[in-house]
């Protein structure tokens, strides 16, 4: 399969790379580093398409322990706030202060410099198995777009 899943909302084209895992509901991506054993976390294009341009990002500091589903920090777009929930459990070992200072980076460089935190995972094998993997990606993107249309009135 292609190493990037592309989709359109309106006239805007978005992409979802197939080289990482995705949270089924929270639209966070997780990329495992085979050298360090750590996982880089960011927000995916489907989640960002629903929000638009981010105005604020706040992130928990390094050393914070999080469980899957707990908050890694918060975001704000168009005067609306929300939690950034962790797709995995572990300890935050690094946070990207560049995205705190310049939240637009998350929109502009979603899968590279727009990462949010690096987590030392405590249960990667089990938790990554519950995330969307490369084989499931096309069907998951389609079902999420369908949900957006049903619930979200996108054209």
């Amino acid at each position, binding site marked *: 399969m292609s190493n990037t899943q592309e989709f359109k909302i309106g006239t805007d084209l978005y992409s979802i790379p197939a080289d990482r895992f995705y949270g089924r509901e929270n639209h966070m991506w997780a990329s495992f580093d085979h050298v360090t054993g750590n996982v880089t976390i960011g927000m995916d294009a489907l989640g960002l398409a629903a929000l638009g341009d981010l105005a604020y990002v706040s992130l928990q500091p390094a050393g914070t322990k999080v469980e899957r589903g707990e908050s890694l920090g918060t975001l704000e777009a*168009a005067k609306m*706030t929300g939690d950034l929930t962790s797709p995995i459990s572990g300890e935050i070992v690094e946070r990207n202060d560049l995205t705190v200072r310049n939240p637009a980076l998350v929109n502009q460089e979603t899968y590279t410099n727009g990462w949010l935190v690096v987590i030392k995972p405590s249960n990667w094998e089990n938790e990554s198995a519950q995330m969307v993997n490369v084989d499931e990606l096309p069907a998951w993107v389609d079902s999420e777009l369908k949900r957006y249309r049903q619930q979200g009135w996108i054209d």
Partner: protein
Amino acid sequence: MKPIRLINLGAVPPWQTQAIYHALAERMDDEAQDTIVLCRPNEPYLCLGYHQVFESIFDPAECARRGLPVYRRRLGGGATYLDENQIFYQCIFHHTHLPVMLKDIYSSALAAPVNTLRGLGLSAELRETNEIEVNGRRIAGTGGGRIEDAAIVVGNILFDFDYEAMTAVWQTPWPSFRLLAQKALHQRIITMKDLAMNVSMEQVTDLLIESFATSMGRELELGELTPEEWQAAEEEAKELASPDYLALHKTNSSPEPMRTLKISARAFIRYDEVQMDGYGVRGSFWLSDDVIQEVILQSTPERDWSFEEEKLRGILFSDWKENIEL
């Protein structure tokens, strides 16, 4: 789907106007009823957006001198001065009962206040995702957030606005910043009083109720808060006004005053400074789409900057330093 519960509180103490919707959001689950709260504060107070730094926005001494309590909401947007001349509408829905796309969440929740204003014969429009304007000027503050399983949209309708109180409590970097902000606020905001609307708060409340029923396409059921919800709201109020919560996002002991202030979607006040040929130049700028509409320059040592001020009008803010020649 269950009918929407409508809670019409009327004039209530400030804490209730913030704490109740937070408490309802915290308790939202698959079984909970979507709720719309209508209310207004019976005394003035200040409310800080979730991501704002208190000391960068408000002058604590001036807030205390005026006896204005401050709450931080878990929703976005900027700091606001709120009082009995504003009607609040607060939609607390299960997130699956509102659209996914943020702009659609706003358009579905804010259709009712827009239609209410139109019902009064005003040319109201929803612009820039979440700004309700009449005659091209903002007549409402809005904000929102996702708390647990709840999606929340809140807003108000301005009957009158205390410009003096709002601008007096701002922590501004320089007096000229406050001056421009006051001017922009007067130009960009509009109230029912400005529009000479002879309409009571009760009439507008009734129209809002009708409009919500129509725009949401669901039955509205008049309801009350349960004792458990009241108790949860009292706990929320303590949290929203607690020193620890107000100090959120403070990264050092003496935060700098704000350098950017949003007045409306198309009006920002910004502060900047530059050292130039022996002058320390400080500028306060009124921007629209990043273009300078008005500027006040001051310097140490003092100098007459009126020629440069005139020259900077219409220039992109990012280019202002290059456009000053001594």
